[in-house]
């Protein structure tokens, strides 16, 4: 399920990510802004169209999503018709859950704008192996609409 998105902007690779050295629950304390902290190997990338086709969410991470280590993702919202950046919304959030175990992440993550206009969330952490859903929820007025991506976390 972990796929590399072929259309990824190359600038992403330089995006700083949390260190994911040892799989110790104490977490690495490496500088999350350091490009050198990005691990080797294929990163994560996936895209999903929202349930009503209003937007496309591209979620990418320069390193593979680690087990029980914090990681950062970049979120780009795209207009499915024009291919331009999708900006017609009031609020966007990102979260993740393990539906089979009926729990989510144990932390709240916030999306911060990055210099290139995309959004970056740091400090996501998947503490169990198995199927995780990443939820990108966009609110426009009274309505909230979801794009859902799937991660099968193995180790």
């Amino acid at each position, binding site marked *: 399920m972990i796929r590399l998105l072929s259309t990824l902007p190359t600038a992403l690779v330089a995006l700083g990510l949390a260190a994911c050295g040892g799989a110790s629950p104490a977490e690495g304390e490496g500088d999350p802004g350091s490009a050198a902290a990005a691990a080797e190997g294929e990163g994560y990338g996936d895209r999903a169209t929202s349930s009503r086709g209003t937007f496309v969410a591209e979620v990418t991470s320069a390193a593979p999503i680690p087990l029980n280590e914090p990681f950062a993702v970049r979120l780009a919202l795209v207009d499915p018709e024009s291919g331009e950046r999708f900006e017609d919304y009031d609020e966007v*959030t990102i979260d993740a859950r393990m539906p089979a175990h009926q729990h989510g992440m144990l932390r709240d993550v916030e999306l911060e704008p990055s210099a290139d206009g995309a959004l970056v969330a740091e400090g996501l952490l998947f503490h169990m192996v198995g*199927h995780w859903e990443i939820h990108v929820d966009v609110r426009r007025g009274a309505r909230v609409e979801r794009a859902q991506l799937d991660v099968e976390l193995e180790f």
Partner: protein
Amino acid sequence: MIVGLALAHAALTPMQAQASATEPTHLGAYVRTIEGLARPVAVAFPPADGDSEVHGLHVAVQGALRGEFASPPGVVVVDAAPPSPEDGGADVPVAATIGVGVLERPTGVAVDGSGGVWVTDDLQHALWYFPAGGGAARRIAERGSAGGELVLPADVDVARDPATGNDLVLVADAGNARAQLLDVGATAWASIGVGVVDEPTSASFAPAPDGTLLVAIADGARHRVEVFALDGTHVGGFGDWGGFPSLLSTPTGLASADGNVFVADSENHRIQAFRVDPEDRRVGRLAYRFGVHAIRPGDGAGSLHYPSDVAVAADASVLALTEPLDDRVQLFVRAPGAEPEEDPLRASIGPPAAHFGPPVAASGIYLATVSPESHRVQIHDLRLDEPVRISEAYVYGDRLGMMRGPSAVWLGADGRELLTLDRGNRRLSRAVLDVRPDEPLAQDPELAQHTDAVDLRALTGEPAFVPGAVARIRREEGDLVAVTDRGSERIAFLDDDLQLVRFVACSGHGGDPLPGIGVRGIDGIAATDRGTLLVVDGAGGRVLEVDAEGRALASFGDELSTPSGIAAAGARVWVTDRLRDRVEIYDRADDGTYAHVRGFGGRGLGRAEFHGPRGVAILADGRVVVLDHGNHRGQIFDREGNFVGGFGSRLYTAELR
């Protein structure tokens, strides 16, 4: 009128309680049950310094139209003094009845120092005052969202302001998500809890340790109790959703005594007492709790079943709680010790987990039920005789894919489309279900994908929108989703993109009533295959058929008293009648009129007997599922109404087998 009584002798007599005054005691020893009250929902005792007998228990009853205990809505007053052993088995005489002929669906009651009685009525969106001695009743508040107006008021309390000597009246204004405080002397209203509470189910005055008066508001959506100063300052709160000690599951009643706030923790079937102190960082700390869920149907004598309200006599000698589903009030007195001894039953049975909420929906071979305790929607496969649960959708919370008090479900597209309403978020949510009717029966914890949702208050501009029921109407010119607003008795019609198409008034509230419509107590709805909508007029005792513009086309249901759930397939319509414990079946004739075909039911646990039947749903093969809410089970009938099966917890389904 005489109501029945059962008596236990486990607790302290008043004399014993007095003798052991220096030793710590607590409230919570079961002493007796007052039975035969018709859906008692709220209780109150008079204040200590008032003119009324301190043990004169005022019980708000919503009434019933059946059987030997048939009675109208109102307030009955009974003597709830702790009994002495020689009282054993005696009936409790009703000392007085109040508000009969005025009240329609009382929700809360309070007694002031002069013996005057304050009552909230959510069908009328009203606060009533009944002076002592039988003077003329006065309606204090009308429906609305401005100051001094109410929508679906849920509770009332009264106390004397220690600073001014004025009587203060506190109303849980559920639809407007606030409490309102009326200074009777100044006739001035103030709102409390705006932005803090989502679903105020109860409001009560509580004395602080320093002698000042606090306001406690139970929030049924957040499962908390919020505490405010009289000036509206939020000083903190306690509770959170769950079943473990100190957590709450839909708190619906509050009372104060001994420095504690007693909470009717309704869906945990217990009373929890919290020591409330604004100076404490936690504000409320669990002091003790009592009550276990009834094991067998009708179990009482200290076993609790959805306690809805709680009151403590001013001398703190007796605590009363209402259990509307079981038509009874139970009384508890003081017992030695700072807290009750742990009930071994509690550890062995654990928290309840097998209840079904009122709504039910079906499509294809699939059935959706609601678990009120978990706030989850359960999906069942009904290809066999009995439903097999294959998945759960939604969890508790406020994000998309989460629910706080699901109030309605609708299933369509052969089980692939799920619509759900929830009270706490006041939201319509949609999910697609990856059902596979052609593959072998299998469980799939990831069946549901949550797609979108809409905030109904923001969508309609109705600040007191309280979602009730939902249905999708299939039409050639485009489907509509119909959502009822219990707060304004209106129906919002949404397009497939969840945009508002129109918002149709069914009553004089909040808009011009359409000709021929005058629904009060809007309940279930069902779409017909002709693109029309059947609307249950819960208090009017009938069903209306309306088109998508809201025009009334037909009205039927002379047999009905308190209709609740409705389902339609082809020309056939099924309606549940909540208080009559019956199901009625109708057929539509070619001329558009409806004729009663047959009906069945009656209170009981046997086949085709019910205890407050609510939701009803029809499967693709014609089988009909009736959600027998008070019996924690569902019953399945064939198209003609013959019993074919049941499901639910073992003890409640034994007589079906």
